[in-house]
């Protein structure tokens, strides 16, 4: 029984770390603010949810597991809301979205 939970923990934590790495690379590589926000909000949320789910498998049924479930639900609700509020503020502030320049492609 413990081997199954350990294996699930390892799989979930490794997957979550991978998604967090992808989100971090997206923050650095993408061209403007909105694409960066899109990269980091979704993949970071998925990464945290996967890692917390893996830790819940490791912990089993207890009070700590219930608290981890609260962290899971809070992150799933709050992280996209924060990213959306930031992107909306940026759009109202006047940050220009990025477009592919067509004139440069022809020349």
């Amino acid at each position, binding site marked *: 029984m413990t081997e199954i939970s350990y294996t699930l923990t390892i799989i979930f934590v490794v997957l979550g770390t991978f998604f967090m790495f992808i989100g*971090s690379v997206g923050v650095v590589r993408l061209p403007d603010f909105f694409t960066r926000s899109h990269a980091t909000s979704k993949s970071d949320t998925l990464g945290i949810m996967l890692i917390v789910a893996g830790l819940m498998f490791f912990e089993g049924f207890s009070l700590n597991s219930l608290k981890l479930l609260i962290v899971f639900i809070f992150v799933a609700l709050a992280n996209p809301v924060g990213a959306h509020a930031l992107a909306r503020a940026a759009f109202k502030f006047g940050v220009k979205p990025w477009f592919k320049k067509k004139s440069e492609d022809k020349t």
Partner: protein
Amino acid sequence: MELFFIYAAIVLTVIIIIPFYRVVKGPTVFDRLLGAGAIGTKTLVLILLLGFLFGRLEMFIDIALAYAVLNFISTLIIAKYFSTDKAKND
């Protein structure tokens, strides 16, 4: 299993450094805020892993929950400030 958690914490610490580039160099204020939020969410997971390593999970989960709430509220308040006209004129 403890060794696995140590390795995961080390990898997360390395991943935290990557968005810090955007915090230092970002062209607009929002890029910096986005990088800071990304660092905050990764630190939340790092706190949970440290709780497993130290064996005092019940304390560290409360700390992580408070950290998540603080990160969320600071992002919301700063976004609310920058969407007003007063911030645009400054």
